[in-house]
């Protein structure tokens, strides 16, 4: 009898933990497992939305991993296209997938609310690497594309890979497929493997590997932004070294394609208020994001343009036909 009670209690506790969410709250879908960038975006923005009183109660974060966001995309398009309480976290990575036809529909299926900030791509080498500048590295790669093993947190054809190849292309390297690319499960595993001498270069977002920049274990050859990043003003941009390439990984949100204009405008408004808040500016900076705002129609146009651009790049480097 006591044992039975105990089991019931366990089930009850689990149920309470899972469903302890106020009914009126907004929901944010993180199309990935807990712990990743999209999950972080949902949880952070959700927390600040609640703290600033922009939504009622807490924002429920739902993890819907699958197909690098495709499962959530299909789910929203199919079942929740008119759910005005819904935010879905996405980023440049999602647009890469859309551009390469790996989502069930194009970007026109959703309403793109806003981006709140961007992680900046970096090209990093170990502190004892022979390459001191982007020029050193790219001329070595140009001479022998297999001379440096490159790596990052995405698979071949992912955003980390593409933005490196964009640089290589700008440097005049012709056979991009000769460059060796190794995928790791994240930026920091890639960096530690580089520190252990397994690979020669890491192309990934600055935010995740900030700790290694501060500790001096790695050297950043280039940040892929227009202007130097505010947290590390001394790091050279690729532009300042003569390569006109940027590689932002922005963080933002979409909602279903059938959400009404009023509800859509309300979300844009709420996220703008959040963007302007002290709390968001702090959070963004501390996690290595440059706060950048694009909202509403401007953001939608930006996404459509980026989708087009990515598809072109992917075609050029032979990732899609």
């Amino acid at each position: 009898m006591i044992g039975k009670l105990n089991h019931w209690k366990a089930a009850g506790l689990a149920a309470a933990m899972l469903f302890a969410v106020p009914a009126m709250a907004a929901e944010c879908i993180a199309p990935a497992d807990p712990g990743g960038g999209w999950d972080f975006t949902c949880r952070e923005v959700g927390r600040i939305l609640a703290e600033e009183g922009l939504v009622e109660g807490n924002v429920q974060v739902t993890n819907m991993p699958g197909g690098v966001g495709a499962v959530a995309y299909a789910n929203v398009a199919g079942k929740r296209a008119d759910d005005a309480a819904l935010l879905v976290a996405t980023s440049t990575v999602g647009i890469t997938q859309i551009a390469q036809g790996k989502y069930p529909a194009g970007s026109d299926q959703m309403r793109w609310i806003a981006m709140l900030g961007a992680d900046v791509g970096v090209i990093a080498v170990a502190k004892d690497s022979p390459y001191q500048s982007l020029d050193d590295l790219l001329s070595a790669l140009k001479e022998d594309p297999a001379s440096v093993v490159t790596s990052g947190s995405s698979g071949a054809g992912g955003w980390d890979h593409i933005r490196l190849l964009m640089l290589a292309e700008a440097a005049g390297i012709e056979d991009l497929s000769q460059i060796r690319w190794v995928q790791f499960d994240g930026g920091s595993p890639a960096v530690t493997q580089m520190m252990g001498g397994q690979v020669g270069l890491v192309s990934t977002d600055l935010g995740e590997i900030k700790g290694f920049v501060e500790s001096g274990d790695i050297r950043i050859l280039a940040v892929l932004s227009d202007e130097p990043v505010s947290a590390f003003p001394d790091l050279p941009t690729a532009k300042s070294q003569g390569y006109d390439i940027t590689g932002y990984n922005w963080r933002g949100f979409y909602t279903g394609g059938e959400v009404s204009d009023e509800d859509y405008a309300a979300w844009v408004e709420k996220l703008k208020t959040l963007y302007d808040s002290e709390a968001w500016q702090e959070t963004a900076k501390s996690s290595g994001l440059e706060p950048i705002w694009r909202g509403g129609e401007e953001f939608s146009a930006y996404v459509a343009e980026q989708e087009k651009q990515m598809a072109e790049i992917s075609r050029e480097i032979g990732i899609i036909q």
Partner: protein
Amino acid sequence: MDILALLLDGFSIAVLPLNLALIVGGCFAGTLIGALPGLGPVNGVAILIPLTFAFGLDATSSMILLSAVYYGCMYGGRISAILLNIPGDEPAIMTTLDGYPMARKGHAADALAISGVASFIGATLATIGLTLFAPLLAKAAIYFGPADYFALYVMAFTTIGGITGTDPRKTLLAAMLGLMLGTVGLDPSTGVARYTFGSFHLYDGFDPIVALVGLFAISEILFFLEQKAHGGGLVPPGSVFPRFSRIKEGLGASLRGSLIGFIAGILPGAGASLGAVMSYSFEKRISDRGSFGKGDPRGVAAPEAGNNAASGGALIPMLTLGVPGSGTTAVMLAMLISLNIQPGPLLFERSPDLVWGLVAALYLANFVLLILNLPLIGLFTRVLGLPAWGLMPLVVAISYLGVYAITHAAFDLLVMVGFGVLGFVLRKLEFSLVPVVLGLLLGMDMENNLRRALSISGGDFTILVQSPIAIGIYAVTAGFLVLSLWLSKRSPPQMA
């Protein structure tokens, strides 16, 4: 000594009333979450994150709570593995091999006590290792490259054939089936979809925890229904009090298992499941005289010490490098970032209060878990005395709830049932289910590391045997094989 002073400072933080309460509460919640099939440490920790924000906990207190839950889950996963043959989470799979047979013999209380003490030993030794050697070990772990990880997985799979009591050929076949199932989904290194038949739901492949709940929990229920139709009963509850003489039998195995598990934990590409597998198969190699798989206390102690030591070890790359050694530590890292703490090589210097407060809390959590778990043995054992009409539907309900809570996809409930039917058929054919899950769970990492090694070398297979670490691992593997052949010649023939 420096470390002692820092650790004492840590204890002064950990014994603050709020932190103590979090340790006790976290351990309790963790044990329950771990014991429920489907809900594991990753979900437990993820579920509690909003709670830490709601309470406005600072970074140190939040980490203490989440780590207590994490350790608690590792203790809890074994409970349902022993009592019901349903592992509560992935690392507890190995505990079913000898834990459930012990329960069937009426020694459930012994098995729970042995595994509780083994968990304590494993987790405590790992915490001591973390205290003394964390920065040093992290530096060593960096030199483990993809080829070395691949060698480690080869070693694990070499030992799989001998893991279960059944025909080794069937075990290998089952592992092969698991490996095949592991290839479903997007190929991580190129993004190409494999065996997905156009379904986005299959892009991420089969989640090992969904497969695990299906194979073990759902097939158990199908089995029960069949038995019910033919008469037959549940496991006898037996004595509710453990005997200390049995606990002593597991001590040596616990120490050996702790060491192996700890090493697996430190390596970010390995983790608790691999730790449990290696601990069990090593123990079986050196101490089995035909009793493993039939309820040997050492077969319970080794994997439990192993998986608890591994979860302690996994905190080392997390704290010293900011590299997650497991899904759970990945969630904890994300939370640290959201609390404005930058994980990475400077964490020990910049946030000593957090690091040492956490380490001290881990020591306390271990004692809390031991004290919490031993008196609960009587309670848990009584679960076996429940009428089946109450227990079995509850298991079904928890399985569905657990799987849905993780994946939020009705599709995965179907996958779970599919695996349940597969599990039922395999058990009818007298296949062990453990190698299927191991194939699925470890196969993916094994493949990824092989692909990484080959990407580095540009397709040249000799990279696999170029690093001294890999060569060392292969040598140990060969040594094990020779040892087991020699042992099997020396000892009386085992049941095939």
